């Protein structure tokens, strides 16, 4: 079939994207290989390294487990019970997603210096991460066909038995994919463990980059972290295979049954309130408190303004470059098959498995050794953003392009348009709103990014995230608060968009 042959006008730029995405991991491999096998083995086999692996896994495991319990419980309470304040819970339970982990860490440690180490990091990361489980489980819950539960009941199962044997089974894929996101987030997060002084991979990598002249250890530990994140991703994909769901026809408009909680109504509401209080209300209250305190001491407005301006400028560049690089790959992924296409698509997703600190460090090596002219200048930072956020942009492009029907493009071809003209006159105009939304999401994600910005920002330039980091580091909490508040405001927007698109997706299904 003709459609299987991808035009070079897409493959060429797509290859460029793939190479950019592979640059950090490639350079990290080169850097590690240069060190020699003996040196690498020496670093990996240290007792300290083993302890580091165990600490990181313990953190990721605990955060994932807690997020699963909290996320699934809140999802069930918010969708299927008569808990008081159900609507309020449904909205507020997702909002902690809008608080960057390092902002939450700042909020806690500034109020309670004792909240640090393992316990503190678990607390902060869990309250930031459980929405990654909560949101997909809520969506899955709303998709469940109530008729299936009715069938189980009519076949003699009790409500409780029906829930475990039928309903919970259908939630498993959603919960599992959410848990994967949480585990990867906990492993790769840099801000929270660093501010809370818990030595995970990311903090140790940063420390050994800062302190020692020989950065081989940082490179080796980075690779080790990548191996762990890739292994977790692969393992999750394995378990997901074979859990397909059989569905005939579309969704059902009927409302599912509501579970009456009875005497447990108020205790359940209280528990939910505690979660929302810890994850959402407290961090914002703490931010506002320090903001007020700092206000009386005087806010450094010029610095706030220049930080905001440079944040915006870097992020706009990041979003534009990401989207430009993502368009050929997204169109290829939506429209064509083939070995080269599949390679380009998979390679471009490399950033998905790479923690920000790893990408940053790899690009530091690359900048110092190969690309000295752009080291600690804007282009290298933009490349880091591109590597990290191209996957999100590709997802948006692919979804938007897949929505525009192939037959419409064929009609354009038969009216005399070349593939390039079809792309320009039909495919991209149709996909523009979706691509634009993806670009906006990348823009806001770049604004929140901390580790790569910290390591690669142009010398002498501060962004909102790095200013918060610096001020918190010297315990100038009042001075740090305005940056934290600004970041929360920025992050609320994509969270609301995400929640709305999920709701729209449900409406489309029913």
């Amino acid at each position, binding site marked *: *079939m*003709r*459609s299987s042959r991808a035009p070079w006008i897409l493959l060429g730029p797509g290859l460029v994207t793939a190479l950019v995405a592979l640059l950090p991991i490639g350079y990290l491999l080169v850097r590690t290989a240069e060190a020699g096998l003996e040196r690498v083995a020496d670093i990996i086999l240290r007792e300290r390294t083993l302890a580091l692996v165990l600490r990181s896994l313990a953190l990721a495991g605990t955060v994932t487990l807690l997020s699963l319990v909290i996320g699934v419980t809140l999802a069930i309470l918010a969708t299927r019970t008569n808990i008081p304040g159900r609507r309020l819970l449904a909205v507020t339970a997702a909002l902690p997603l809008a608080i960057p982990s390092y902002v939450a860490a700042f909020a806690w440690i500034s109020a309670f210096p004792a909240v640090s180490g393992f316990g503190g990091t678990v607390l902060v990361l869990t309250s930031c991460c459980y929405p990654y489980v909560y949101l997909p489980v809520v969506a899955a819950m709303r998709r469940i066909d109530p008729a299936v539960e009715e069938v189980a009941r009519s076949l003699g199962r009790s409500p409780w038995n029906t829930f475990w044997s039928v309903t919970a089974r259908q939630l498993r894929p959603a919960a599992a994919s959410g848990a994967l996101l949480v585990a990867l987030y906990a492993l790769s997060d840099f801000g929270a463990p660093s501010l809370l002084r818990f030595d995970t991979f990311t903090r140790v990598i940063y420390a050994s980059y800062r302190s020692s002249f020989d950065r081989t250890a940082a490179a080796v530990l980075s690779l080790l972290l990548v191996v762990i994140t890739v292994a977790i991703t692969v393992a999750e994909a394995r378990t997901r295979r074979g859990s397909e769901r059989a569905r005939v026809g579309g969704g059902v408009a009927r409302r599912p049954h509501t579970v009456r909680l009875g005497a447990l109504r108020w205790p359940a509401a209280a528990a939910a309130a505690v979660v929302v209080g810890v994850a959402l209300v407290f961090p914002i209250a703490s931010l506002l408190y320090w903001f007020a305190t700092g206000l009386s001491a005087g806010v450094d407005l010029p610095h706030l303004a220049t930080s905001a301006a440079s944040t915006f400028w870097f992020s706009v560049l990041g979003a534009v470059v990401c989207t430009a690089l993502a368009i050929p790959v997204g169109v290829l992924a939506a429209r064509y098959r083939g070995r080269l296409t599949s390679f380009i698509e998979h390679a471009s997703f490399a950033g998905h498995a790479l923690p920000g600190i790893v990408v940053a460090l790899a690009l530091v090596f690359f900048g110092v050794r190969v690309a000295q002219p752009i080291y600690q200048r804007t282009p290298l930072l933009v490349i880091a953003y591109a590597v990290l956020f191209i996957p999100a942009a590709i997802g948006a492009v692919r979804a938007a392009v897949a929505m525009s*029907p192939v*037959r*419409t493009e*064929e*009609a*354009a*071809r*038969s*009216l*005399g*348009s*070349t593939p390039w*003209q079809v792309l320009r*006159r*039909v495919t991209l*105009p*149709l996909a523009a709103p979706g691509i634009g939304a993806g670009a906006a999401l990348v823009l806001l994600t770049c604004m929140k990014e901390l580790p790569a910005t910290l390591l690669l920002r142009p010398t002498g330039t501060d962004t909102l995230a790095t200013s918060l980091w610096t001020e918190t580091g010297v315990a100038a909490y009042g001075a740090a608060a305005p940056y934290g508040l600004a970041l929360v405001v920025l992050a609320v927007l994509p969270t609301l968009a995400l929640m709305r698109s999920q709701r729209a997706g449900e409406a489309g299904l029913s």
Partner: protein
Amino acid sequence: MSALEVRGLRASFGETQVLRGVDLDVLEGTLTAVLGPSGCGKTTLLRAVAGFVAPDAGTVAVGNHVLFCPGTDVPPERRGVALVPQEGSLFPHLDVAGNVAFGLPRDQRRGSRRVAEVLELVGLAGYAKRRPDELSGGQQQRVALARALAPSPRLVLLDEPFSALDAGLRGAVRADVRTALAATGATAVLVTHDQDEALSMADTVAVMDDGVVRMHASPEQVYTGPVDLGVARFVGQLVELRAQLEGTRAHTVLGAVTALPDARHTAPVTAGGVLALRPEQLRLHPFEHGPGAPAQVETVSFHGHDATVAVVLDAPGPDSRLLVRTTGPTAAAGDRVRVTVEGPGLFFPDPA
């Protein structure tokens, strides 16, 4: 002169052969319907002509231009073959005028008379500024046709363009499409599985089955003189009677009937085979004083303009159950009747 000439066209999806040597000639300025059951390869043929399916072998030529032959594969945009897809597939981001102007050269897209001209032709003058989502299904299909006709293509391909429309609308849109095509003198190929549509709209009908064109002739010929039982069964309803041929007479349960021999094969003077009749060739008579074979009415399906009556002959046998189309007074289930044959039947000898 043939506007479209397809020779020995073969195409496959993986292991499955979809086209097994298609030959098709379409004359300049005519509308040819490609008729066949779903899965017969008719849509693949259309897409191969448009250039969206790469054939394995054969040639496709439009006018004097070879579009496909071994070593040559003209891309879709340079074929001058316009497509009207099943669902219209209008460009949702453009208004009606933008859609129709899409295939015109850049300098003619704005303010050209051509857009108004073709819109007028399909009966949508004054709709230029509408958005596709403000149009009914029938209007969308007409815009899709106008869009295809605007650049004056060498050939227009219509892929089941009426199947998404409801029955009431379909007739009107068909008539309008027919008129518009005739007015522009465009050569067109219409793919359909609807025999009424093929027989009523087209100048010629090509019956496709299992990846080949079985027969290509005028609608009358296809209906009255099908080349084999397969074509006969697919085009219209069929009454099949076991028959013994003697000279030009075929002896059946309904008596002796004049047999037109299968034109392609010279049937032997005496042979066993099948006599094919159309339901409207059977006549019902009152049982008490009519001629013909005695039978009992089983069911009656009343269609308004006529009725289809299923009867069971008293004489037992494999073909004792017959379909009769009658415009006269209808019988009721359980009535006793007699059945006769009017006109000649087609005789197909048993394969040796």
